[in-house]
C-alpha cells in the first residue's frame, strides 16, 4: 500500500516547548484523514512540518515520498494546501489569482476550474481583500483543486465558516476524493465525522491513536452497569475502561477495546451481581471527549485507574 504521508518519530520543539512529540503516522492512499485535537495540540505544526514550512527537530516526514525538508518547487505540482491562516495575494482579483496560479501547474484543468468557480459561486472580478472569509477559503480551495493534486492538505479549513459554506466545500472536496488523498486537521469533530475515512488524535504533540474511522467506532462503547445495590468504584479497573463514574447503583465507563464477544463476558465476570449491562455505540465526539478527559486526568491519575488508553 502507498502512503502519501508518512512520518517517523517526527518531533518539533520551539525552545523548551514540544509542539510535536515523536509522531509516527502513515496515511494510506485514497484516505480522507482527519487529524483532530484540541487547540494547541500541535495539529498546525504537524501540517507545517509535512509541507516543509517548518523543519523537524528530530525525525522525518514525507509527503508523496519526498522528504519534507526537500519539498519545494515542482513537488507542489501534486500537492494542494489550504490553511485557515494562509495569506493570499490580497491585491489580486479571484480571476487574476486563478490566471496567475494556472501558469505554475502543467496539469491545471481549465474545465475543472470553471466548474469550481461555478460550484463555489466565486466572483472572479473582485479582489481577494474584499472577500469574506468564507469566499477567500472557497477561492483557495478552487485554486488548490483545479490541478487535480494527488494530495490535499487542509489545516482547519472549515474553522469559523457558516454551515452552508462548509457543506459547499465538503461537497467540492468529496467530488475529488476518489482521485486524491485528503489530510485535514480540525478541532470540530462533528464537521469531519461524516466524511472522514481515517482519524488520528493528537494531544499535546503526541499522536494518541491513528486508525480507520470504522475501526474506531467499533472499538469504543459506552458501558452502563446497573448494580443490585449501591457500590463504590472498584479498585484497579482495566486500562481499557476510560472515565469510570459511579452513582448509586449505576456504574458508567467507556470501553476502548470493545469486542463483541469478549467484552460482555469480561464485564459480567467483573460485576456478577449486575442487574443490567447496557453497551451502546458512541458518537465520535463522545469518543474523543472520553479520550481527552482520560489523558488530562492521567497527569494526576486516580488510584482507581491503572493507566489511560
Amino acid at each position, binding site marked *: 500500500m502507498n502512503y502519501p504521508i508518512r512520518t517517523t518519530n517526527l518531533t518539533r520543539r520551539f525552545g523548551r516547548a514540544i509542539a510535536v512529540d515523536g509522531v509516527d503516522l502513515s496515511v494510506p492512499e485514497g484516505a480522507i484523514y482527519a487529524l483532530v485535537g484540541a487547540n494547541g495540540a500541535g495539529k498546525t505544526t504537524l501540517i507545517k512540518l509535512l509541507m516543509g514550512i517548518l523543519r523537524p527537530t528530530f525525525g522525518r516526514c514525507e509527503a508523496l515520498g519526498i522528504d519534507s525538508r526537500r519539498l519545494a518547487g515542482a513537488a507542489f505540482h501534486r500537492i494542494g494546501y489550504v490553511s485557515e491562516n494562509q495569506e493570499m495575494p490580497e*491585491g489580486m482579483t479571484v480571476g487574476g489569482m486563478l490566471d496567475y496560479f494556472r501558469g505554475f501547474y502543467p496539469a491545471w484543468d481549465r474545465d475543472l476550474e470553471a466548474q469550481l468557480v461555478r460550484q463555489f459561486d466565486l466572483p472572479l472580478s473582485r479582489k481577494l481583500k474584499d472577500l469574506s472569509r468564507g469566499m477567500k477559503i472557497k477561492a483557495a480551495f478552487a485554486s488548490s483543486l483545479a490541478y487535480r493534486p494527488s494530495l490535499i492538505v487542509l489545516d482547519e479549513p472549515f474553522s469559523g465558516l457558516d454551515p452552508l459554506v462548509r457543506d459547499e466545500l465538503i461537497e467540492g472536496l468529496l467530488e475529488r476524493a476518489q482521485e486524491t488523498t485528503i489530510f485535514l486537521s480540525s478541532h470540530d469533530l462533528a464537521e469531519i465525522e461524516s466524511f472522514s475515512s481515517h482519524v488520528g488524535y493528537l494531544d499535546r504533540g503526541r499522536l494518541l491513536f491513528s486508525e480507520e474511522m470504522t475501526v474506531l467506532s467499533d472499538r469504543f462503547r459506552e458501558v452502563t452497569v446497573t448494580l443490585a445495590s449501591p457500590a463504590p468504584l472498584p479498585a484497579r479497573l482495566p486500562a481499557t475502561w476510560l472515565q469510570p463514574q459511579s452513582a448509586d447503583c449505576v456504574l458508567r465507563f467507556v470501553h476502548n477495546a470493545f469486542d463483541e464477544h469478549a467484552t460482555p463476558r469480561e464485564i459480567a465476570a467483573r460485576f456478577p451481581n449486575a442487574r443490567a449491562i447496557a453497551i451502546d455505540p458512541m458518537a465520535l465526539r463522545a469518543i474523543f471527549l472520553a479520550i481527552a478527559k482520560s489523558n488530562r486526568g492521567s497527569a494526576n491519575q486516580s488510584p482507581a485507574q491503572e493507566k489511560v488508553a
Partner: protein
Amino acid sequence: MKQILHIFAKDVRRFWPEILVSLGVLAALVLVCSRLWSLPQSTYWGRDEIGQHTDNLMLITQILSAFLLVSWWLLITRVIHAEAPTGETHFWITRPYDRKLLVAAKFFFLVVFLYAPLVLAQMLMLAAAGLNPLASIAGMLFNLMLITGFYVLPLTAIATVTSTFFRTTLTLFCALAVITPFAVKDIFNPGSPMETSLNSLLYGGLPFSHLLPVGDQLSLSLLLIAVCGIAIVLQYIFRRSWLARIALLAAPAIVCIGVVAEAPRPELSDRAEKNLHYPLLSTATAGPLQLSDGRDEQHPVVVHRYPGDDFVWVRMPLLLSPLQEGTAATQEGLEVTITNASGFSWSTTVPGWYPEHVLLISSDRSGSWPEQRRQSQFTIPITVYDKFKSAPVTVHLTLARAELQEAGVTRIPFPIHETFVPGVGLCRAMKLGYGAIQCRSAFRQPQLTYVSAEWSQSPCPAPQTEMKEVRGETWMGFSDSEPADLGIVPVQYSGGAFMSDHNNTTGGKYLCTGTPITFTQYKLVRRTLTNLTLQNVRLSE
C-alpha cells in the same frame, strides 16, 4: 525562464502605480537637471534672478534625488513582499515556485524598472550637461555597482528578512540610527567624507553619497554586496531567516567601520590606519621630498590668537627640498605632539586634505613658493597653550603626505566657454573676482588638478607696463582615483576661484583675453609618513 517571466508579469500588473511613481520622479529629475545645466554661465554664481533660479533648481534636484530613493525603497519592498521570503503563512511557499527563479524574477524586475531607467536617465543627463555618455560607460557601470552596494542590495536584503513594509521601514531606520552618530561626528571633521558629502549637496549630489571614503567606495560596496547577497541567499534559498538577519547585522557594522576608518584619508590618531595607508619611510628611502626645520630669524614660529577665540594658531615654518620636475606633494594629515620641560605632553591631529595643504609643486610651476618654505599650522586650546608658552618645548610633527606625478597638461586661452578639457571635463572660466574656473565631469571629480593663470596687474586691454608675473591658482579633484562616485545625478562639479599665496602682490589681478589657463593633472604615486622633531621651540605670541 518561463516562471521568471510569469512572476515578472504578475508584479508589473500588480505594482504599476509604484513603477509609475518611480519613473515619474526619475523623469522629473532628468528635466530639472537639464534645465539646470542649460542656465547661462555668467550668472551661475551671481545673486541675480538666474542665480536664485539656479539655487532653486539645485534644491529641487536634491529633493527629487531623495524622493527617488524613497520610491525605490517602496518599489523594492513591495515587490519583494509580494512573495515575502519570511514567515510561514504566505501563499507562495506551498506553490510550485522555484526559489532561485523567484530571486531571478525579482532582480529582473529591478533591472527593468530601476536599473534600465536609471541608466537611460543618466545618459540623458550627461548629454544635457554636454558630456558624452558613451565615453563614460565604465563610470556608469561603476556607479551602478556602487548604487547596488549602498542602496539597492541593502534595501532588498532588509525587505527579504522582514515580512511587512512596517518592519522593513523600522529595520531601515534602526540601521540609519546606528550609522548616523558616526556620520554626524564626521560632519564637523573638515575634509572628511561627511563634510565632503555636505559640500556635494551644494552641487546636486545625493544625500550621504559621500558618507563613505571616496577611495574606499569600491571595497566597501563589494563588502556590502557580499554581505547582503549572503543574507538574500540564506533567506531565499536556504530559508534560514535568523542566519540571514545576523548576516545582515554585519552591514551597518561595516559601514560604521568604514566611516570611522575614513581610509584612505585617515585620522592620524588611528595608528593602524596610519600604518596601513602611510608607511613610514626610512631616512635612506625618504623619497624626493625632504622636510626639515625651517626656523630662522626671518621665519620664526608664529603664534597668534584672534580676539574671542579660546585657542591659538601656531604656524610652524618648514623647509622643503626641491622636487623633481613634474611632481608635487600634498599634506593629507598632520599630527602634532608638544612636550614641555616638565614632561607634560599634548597631541592634536589635523585630518583631511585641503587645497592649501599642497606642500610643493615642482620648479616649473613653483613660482609661488620660490623659497620652498611652507608652514604647517595647527591650533592649541588656550588652557593647554598656557602650559607651553613660558619655556621652550619640543614639537614632534608627523606628516601624512601624498606624492604626486604630473599626468597631463592642457592650456586653453581665456575666456573659456564650455570647453572640454581632457581628463577633467567640460570647463568654463569666469571673470568673477580674480577669475574662477568651474568644471562638470561625468560620475566623478577629476584627478587632482592644478589650474593656474597669469594675472595682469592692469585692467585689460591696457598696455602691460612693468609686467610682473603673478600667478592665480586653484586646485580641484582628488588624488584618489575611482571611475565614479556614488550618486544618482551623474554630473560632478569641481573648480574654484583663482588665488595666490603671494603676499607681495600689489596692483590689480586681471584675467585678460588670450591668457592661457593651464590645467595640470596629477596622479598619486604613493603616500608616506614623515616624522620631524623640532627642539627648543618657543611658543610665545
